[in-house]
């Protein structure tokens, strides 16, 4: 048994940054954006489903596929999966768990099972959160949408990634439930302990913010090592790497455009119209207050 730590976030909330930080924390030399593992590292990886379940997930409806995913994650956690051991390294303080990225909201299958396999196989979830007013512009860039379209998606409880049915999407369908729905689903489930990591706190000091979350998970890491990982994962470094050689996990339609766009916090003050800002604050007020993006009591 090698329990899972879910790295859970709505898209464009800093999941890749967190993964890069963790990869650099586990490494003795700098790891670049194209060396932090392939799509296999994500819970919704189609190749891993097919390789492990020995059937073509593409022949299943989204719901039928979801019905098989809890057993897949149980199998991975039980350590029977080949890839479970791939991360092991004597000097890797993170190696006791499997760190798996996911953009799936916490949902249940049609049979009522938690999609992510439940509490028995997961040590914890690190829930990476970012101010939705900053997510809008990043998501619009990622999806090739207008800001308004991105805001609509973030407010849509039926929103999903890889959810089309006229083709086989690259990944398994991931229900997002909208930005608020996403975070509510994770913090309101009571199977897996959730540790919140705010994008803004990473920005204010990645080493400290990451160290605090890891401490919450029960491991202490040498502060110098945290500082080194933060330095190797700095936004400017990441952006330079993308400019130089591109990012293989970026959507192809972005072309040579920027996956790592601005990385700023508070950019919404210039990028959003007052009306759009008000829309987002209205759509997501409760969760924004929950994570400290709006003062308590403000309506």
């Amino acid at each position, binding site marked *: 048994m090698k329990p899972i730590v879910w790295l859970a976030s709505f898209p464009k909330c800093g999941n890749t940054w967190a993964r890069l930080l963790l990869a650099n924390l586990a490494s003795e030399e700098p790891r670049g954006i194209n060396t932090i593992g392939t799509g296999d590292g994500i819970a919704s990886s189609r190749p891993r489903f097919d390789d492990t*379940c020995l*059937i073509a997930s593409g*022949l299943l409806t989204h719901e039928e596929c979801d019905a098989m995913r809890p*057993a897949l994650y149980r199998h991975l956690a039980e350590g*029977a999966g080949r890839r479970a051991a791939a991360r092991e390294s004597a000097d890797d303080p993170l190696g006791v768990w499997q760190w798996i990225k996911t953009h799936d909201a916490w949902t249940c299958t049609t049979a009522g099972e938690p999609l992510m396999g439940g509490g028995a196989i997961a040590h914890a979830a690190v829930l990476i959160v970012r101010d939705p007013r900053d997510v809008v512009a990043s998501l619009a860039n990622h999806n090739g949408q207008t800001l308004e379209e991105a805001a609509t998606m973030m407010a849509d409880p039926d929103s999903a990634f890889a959810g089309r049915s006229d083709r086989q999407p690259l990944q398994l369908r991931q229900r997002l439930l909208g930005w608020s729905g996403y975070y509510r689903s994770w913090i309101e489930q009571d199977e897996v302990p959730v540790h919140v990591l705010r994008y803004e706190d990473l920005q204010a000091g990645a080493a400290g913010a990451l160290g605090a979350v890891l401490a919450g998970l029960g491991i202490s890491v040498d502060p110098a090592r945290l500082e080194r990982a933060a330095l190797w994962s700095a936004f400017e470094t990441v952006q330079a790497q993308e400019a130089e050689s591109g990012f293989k996990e970026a959507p192809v339609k972005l072309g040579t455009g920027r996956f790592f766009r601005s990385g700023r916090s508070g950019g919404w003050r210039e990028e959003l119209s007052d009306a759009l800002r008000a829309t987002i604050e209205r759509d997501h007020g409760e969760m924004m207050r929950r994570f400290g993006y709006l003062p308590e009591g403000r309506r």
Partner: protein
Amino acid sequence: MFHYVMSGLRVTSDLAMPGLIETAATASAAPDVRIRQGEVPLALDDCDASGPNWQMADDRFLLRIPGIVRMTLDAGTAITWQCEGDTRPEDAVIFISGSGFGLLMHQHGRCIMHGSAVAVGGRAVLFCGPSGAGKSTLAAALAARGFGHVADDQCVLSGLAGGEVLVHPDGRAHKLWEQAITKLDLAERSGDPVRSALRKFFVAPQAASPAESGAALPLAAIYILAEARAPDLVKGEKVTITPLNLADAAIAVRANAYRPAMVERLGQAGLYLQAAAAAQRAGGVFRLVRPMNFEVMDEVLAALARHWEDTGLAERVA
């Protein structure tokens, strides 16, 4: 009872299996594989290995697609199936003729590649890759240019020990998603959905080949499909075809077995090394990198046509 030629084997089935190559019943010879409905256990006793939805015990394999169908595969010669819940057999059959039969070929000790294939100059060219790599789409686009259909998803190779390597067809239809059917303008050739709830359809190939009757074709070459992505994409080249040396070909061929995990599990690595060496002798193993975008399909087809001229394969067409 229905009779088919699947991957070079004579198969009898109590279930009609769409898209396959039907054949007349032969009174004289026993079939190589029998597919029939029956009681299928939920678990096997004393299993040696297991996955989330499968178990293996000696020469018996249990595969389950919960709520749809489960089946046992025995000694590479028999599939017993049982639908689950209220699933109708016609909605489960693709798992039997596809996933189930493919695993049976692994169990049978045959070399089975995850690939589509078309006929070029009387020989078979394979396009391999995982699900979603574009195997069927590329084969369908080539069929529209007159290259005969050989296989859609599974290619069994025989004759690896020496002499001519043969590629056995897996059926007589493409299986294409609605988007591909639209983009390739194949709506008129499109038939029933692969499953009632899916917008993936059987499509009659535009060009036939000797494989339509179930006959095997000599292997010409293997192409491993990959999507052009950063960091490769920013180098400016859109479509590239690169020959693999024997070491890389060996890795690629094994990784593109129908179910690579089964190769390891059944200790068949040697078989796929043989296949890689045989493919190198036949014409080569190549990596075909291109954007996964219908707008560049013509460019991909042109690159392949040039490559077949350069390698002498196209001369055989004339």
